[in-house]
């Protein structure tokens, strides 16, 4: 799949997403439910702001000394008998893994949920190997794979856009003959996938955190599929973004606690595992472990104002509070990394030509920044992207540039500005419809503007704009009168 999930233009995607009422309701329900659970779990822990500072400090320290931590981690994996491969690009990682699979004559792969393997399009490349069977074992990813590799819509809840009837139909193609009860369908998936686990000769996982001082891999799940993926196959491949390290088991423990609370409102997920290559005497676990450390554009953020996005621990809390995500869902973003995190990260990894629209898909309300457990200033990074695109790369449309020049001239020239204030009320007469004042339509100056042309159309498509007041009633005139009346009181008039 790669980072991009579609070739459809941004505004078309948004319109398509807006039509998907089930998805919108599902996202709204999920956001509201997660809000309650997340905030309650943070409150129960106590001192949440101090925990956030600790989380930020851990991640910043790792990013600051990233080459040193990577070196320490790689040394420790190798000391335990594992192999480490540094992949500059997605194709390097895929080439290494497919070569390994061919050399070992792997025929059955089980995978646990991993964003980074989606980023490098690993599944489809592995399936090109003749005779290869590959199974995503996370319940949601299994549903997506079984539905002709449908796109995920959320980094924590990938099938949020599907209802139980749709999932029942997907499972019926696999032989399921039960009803649409989620428990019955999950039990079917358990039985179906268990057979694959027991026959698998290669397991592929992502990595929540790599422990630098021990060479262990920390994985966090609720279903237990990652643990089976790490227990049963003789060969295990771990694919990790190069920034996903922590100094020691202690910091992994801190971040697992913060991740579980931020992602799903749990104190810890059902399974937090810290594992490496099998040691002497043990009978299961990987006899051959390969860790692929991937750059794939991440280093472009280093040493720039965007460096802090590498602190991200993929909890998805920023998606769960975002009003834009609430309306357009994951598919609207056109990236496997949606929401505020994706709007910052996708242009770094995939470039502005492909993802330049995303930093504008934000109301800049700052809810993402406020909820981020590792204090990434997400909405400020979105503004920074806009600055880079407009000021440095001059990527704005010529018409927008001309309009903004005119606005600049008007607001920078007192006579023109005064003239605009004199006539704006009258000039907007033809666009106005008269409606009663409501909570949504305050500031009623003889009607509201319900349709406007050009760049203002985006506003009036979704809400009315207040009509400018008459020049005798505008703020400047009001303030002038107010000051004069204060002066009059002071002089006893």
């Amino acid at each position, binding site marked *: 799949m790669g980072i991009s999930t579609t070739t459809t233009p941004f505004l078309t995607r948004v319109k398509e997403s807006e039509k998907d009422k089930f998805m919108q309701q*599902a996202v709204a329900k999920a956001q509201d439910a997660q809000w309650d659970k997340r905030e309650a779990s943070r409150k129960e822990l106590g001192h949440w702001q*101090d925990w956030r500072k600790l989380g930020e400090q851990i991640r910043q320290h790792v990013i600051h000394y990233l080459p*040193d931590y990577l070196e320490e981690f790689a040394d420790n994996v190798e000391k335990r008998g594992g192999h480490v491969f540094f992949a500059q690009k997605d194709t390097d990682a895929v080439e290494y893994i497919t070569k390994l699979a061919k050399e070992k004559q792997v025929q059955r792969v089980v995978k646990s949920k991993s964003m980074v393997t989606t980023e490098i399009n690993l599944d489809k490349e592995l399936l090109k190997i003749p005779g290869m069977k590959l199974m995503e074992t996370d319940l949601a990813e299994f549903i997506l794979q079984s539905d002709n590799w449908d796109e995920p819509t959320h980094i924590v809840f990938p099938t949020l856009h599907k209802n139980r009837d749709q999932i029942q139909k997907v499972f019926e193609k696999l032989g399921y003959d039960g009803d649409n009860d989620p428990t019955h369908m999950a039990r079917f998936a358990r039985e179906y996938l268990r057979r694959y*686990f027991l026959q698998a000769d290669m397991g592929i996982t992502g990595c929540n955190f790599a422990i630098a001082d021990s060479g262990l891999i920390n994985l966090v799940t609720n279903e237990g599929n990652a643990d089976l993926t790490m227990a049963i196959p003789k060969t295990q491949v771990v694919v990790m973004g190069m920034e996903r390290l922590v100094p020691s088991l*202690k910091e992994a423990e801190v971040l697992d606690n913060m991740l579980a609370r931020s992602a799903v409102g749990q104190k810890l997920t*059902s*399974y937090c595992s810290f594992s490496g290559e099998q040691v002497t005497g*043990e009978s299961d676990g990987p006899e051959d472990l390969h860790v692929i450390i991937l750059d794939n554009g991440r280093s472009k953020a280093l040493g720039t104002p965007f*460096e802090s996005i590498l602190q991200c621990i993929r909890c998805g809390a920023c998606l769960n509070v975002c009003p834009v995500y609430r309306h357009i869902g994951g598919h609207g973003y056109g990236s496997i990394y949606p929401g505020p995190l994706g709007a910052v990260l996708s242009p770094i990894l995939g470039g502005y030509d492909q993802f330049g629209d995303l930093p504008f898909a934000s109301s800049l309300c700052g809810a993402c920044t406020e909820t981020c457990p590792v204090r990434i200033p997400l909405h400020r990074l979105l503004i920074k992207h806009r600055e880079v695109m407009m000021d440095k790369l001059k990527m704005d449309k010529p018409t927008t540039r001309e309009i903004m020049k005119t606005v600049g001239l008007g607001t920078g020239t007192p006579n023109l500005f005064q003239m605009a204030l004199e006539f704006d009320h009258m000039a907007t007469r033809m666009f106005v419809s008269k409606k009663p004042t409501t909570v949504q339509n305050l500031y009623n100056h003889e009607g509201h503007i319900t349709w406007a042309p050009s760049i203002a159309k985006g506003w009036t498509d979704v809400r009315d704009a207040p009509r400018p007041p008459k020049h005798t009633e505008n703020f400047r005139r009001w303030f002038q009168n107010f000051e004069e009346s204060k002066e009059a009181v002071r002089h006893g008039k």
Partner: protein
Amino acid sequence: MASDNREEFLNNIAEKAGRPRHQLAEHPFIPLNDLPETTLADKTPAALFDLAKQNSQSIHVTFQTADTAGLADLLNQDIQEKEAKSLLLPTDDRLAEYGLTNWMAGVTPSPTYWEPTGGREENIQRAQNADVAVGCVDFLCAESGTITVATTPGQGRSFHFLPTHYIALVPKSRIVPRSRQAMDWYDEEIKAGRLHTSNINFITGPSNSGDIEMVLVVGVHGPIDMSYIVITDQ
């Protein structure tokens, strides 16, 4: 298949970041607060027990207690309730410490063991066939109802994941405030060379998923239910 481009990769990062390599030894990570250690650290053992019980039950765990004398009866009762036709036990000295030597010899169904020399396929198959597994775990974390266990030759990884029902045995003296105290112990044991393991599991209740319409389903890939038995005189 060793990586021959490590230096190039790491130098590229250092160059992009504008920071030299090999600075970490002089700038080790020093946490800015001690919240992980101090949170709940003031609780008495009795308070921690109550907290462990409450938090275990809130994650769909059946929380039980027994002293050494009553442990065998409680296990028999649990195994009967599950209508178990197969039982898996670890090869672990702790079972004898908990007074279960005679019980192991006479329990029905007759147990199979995860054996240190039992072979990969054989041990995995035993776990796959087990209706019930009774595991020995290292700690119970009061805050989250988490049990923690390190993989050993006598109790492998799949032991905790493949069986349908899972019962964890944990001494009352091993109830700790939070996952931090358990992690501190593992960190120290590994670094001191006293613990040789490839895997540590922190397990917080039975497996579950909310992937279908956010409806909680308990029991997905791992055990479909879980009991903790706290041994009160250990």
